[in-house]
């Protein structure tokens, strides 16, 4: 749970809340961009960028090569799969009837 996973920011979903859709190994997940807010204040600057995503927050902008290497390392450790499963669990938890 302590390792982040690379994802690509695809679109801004809620500029007020600094939320964006990220593509994480083919899984779409809404994430917060608060930690990587550009100094210009213009969130659209990060569309298309890769970010290291940790528990739903983009913690750092990284380059595409770093993203690929990090993903390979996470796959080697089985952590990529674990994170994707956790994301699926999260989606399921939201769907469960209260």
């Amino acid at each position, binding site marked *: *749970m*302590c390792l982040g996973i690379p994802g690509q920011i695809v679109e801004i979903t809620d500029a007020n809340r600094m939320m964006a859709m990220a593509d994480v190994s083919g899984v779409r997940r809404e994430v917060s961009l608060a930690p990587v807010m550009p100094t210009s204040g213009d969130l659209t600057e990060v569309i298309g960028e890769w970010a290291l995503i*940790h*528990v739903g927050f983009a*913690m750092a902008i990284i380059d595409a090569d770093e993203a690929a290497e990090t993903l390979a390392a996470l796959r080697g450790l089985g952590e990529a799969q674990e994170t994707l499963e956790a994301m699926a669990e999260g989606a399921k938890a*939201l769907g469960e009837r*209260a």
Partner: protein
Amino acid sequence: MRYVQEFRDPTTAKVLLAEIARVADQIGATPEKPVHIMEICGGHTHAIFRYGLDRLTHPGIEFIHGPGCPVCVLPMARVDECVELAQQPGVIFCTFGDAMRVPGTKKSLMQAKADGCDIRMVYSPLDALELARRNPNREVIFFGLGFETTTPSTALTIQQAAREGLTNFTVFCNHITVPPPIKALLDDPHMVLDGFVGPGHVSMVIGIHPYDFIARDYGKPIVVAGFEPLDLLQSVLMVLIQIRDGRAEVENQYSRIVPEHGNPVSIAAIEDVYEKRPSFAWRGLGEIDESGLQIQAKYAAFDAEAKFGIGYGAEVAREVEEPDGCACSQVMTGRIKPIACPQFGQCCTPEMPLGALMVSSEGACAAYYQYGGGRPLEAAE
């Protein structure tokens, strides 16, 4: 060597291993008189076992597995409190999946869920926030657990809940910080530590300066490392070179991710929402001064301890004994290897963990179990 072939770049791995061996020889490290290097982060522990780095490196290097797995250091009393919170009427209790199987004195969260509590595994505190928005008649509690990598995410979530004026969302804050337990271990006269491999993603948040005391006050080298096997080998080499040259500095092997001063937004959120507790209990390590965080009074409306009177912040912090015959605290402090624990693989397995070190893949016992750390080198090849 089976393991080296699995590296992204076996040639570089071999060069690094040879270099490590050369410097270890220069230092005079032998299996009888090893250099003790502690990897602080559980992610590193996992990678070391996964790639067999403890066996591939020079035999004079001994890895001591550090306290950097938040699930592993969670005392049973905290798990009991989680169950108690989950049993409150109308509560939806949200947790990271990793915490589900950690044993409490009576039950784990997994068992509590089976017994009918509404416990949900979420990926992010934002999922818990969304549950609170969607269920205004329910009380949603998020179990905030983890080191500085995770702390900002709960802080930012609380700030967001405050902006929205939500009244049914709280955090049960059990966040902990990396530097204090390192200091505690360095102050322990029984510990022999010659250098450290520092956590990568924690440092991405806090930067490298919180470790200055390790070099300055204790004269030990520390190298902040990525968790790719090559990152780890490179970092071990950097630690050894410092030892050989008689230097003690904070070096950053992972500068491509870790900025010197960390992430300013995250640090500001942590400082806005949390303050240090006077002390906090760690499983296996006991009470450590200023090692845990609590929610500041201005955010009391989002503090499960304040709202429900359960937890560390309640009048008496509960203490409970860890299970009989479990050697968790000795393993935790690196005094013995997991296989030396009488419960290892017998009463304690990843399926039925007795101690928390067996629960998460980042725990030393689980890593030993999964990758056969107890077997001799020949058997693994």
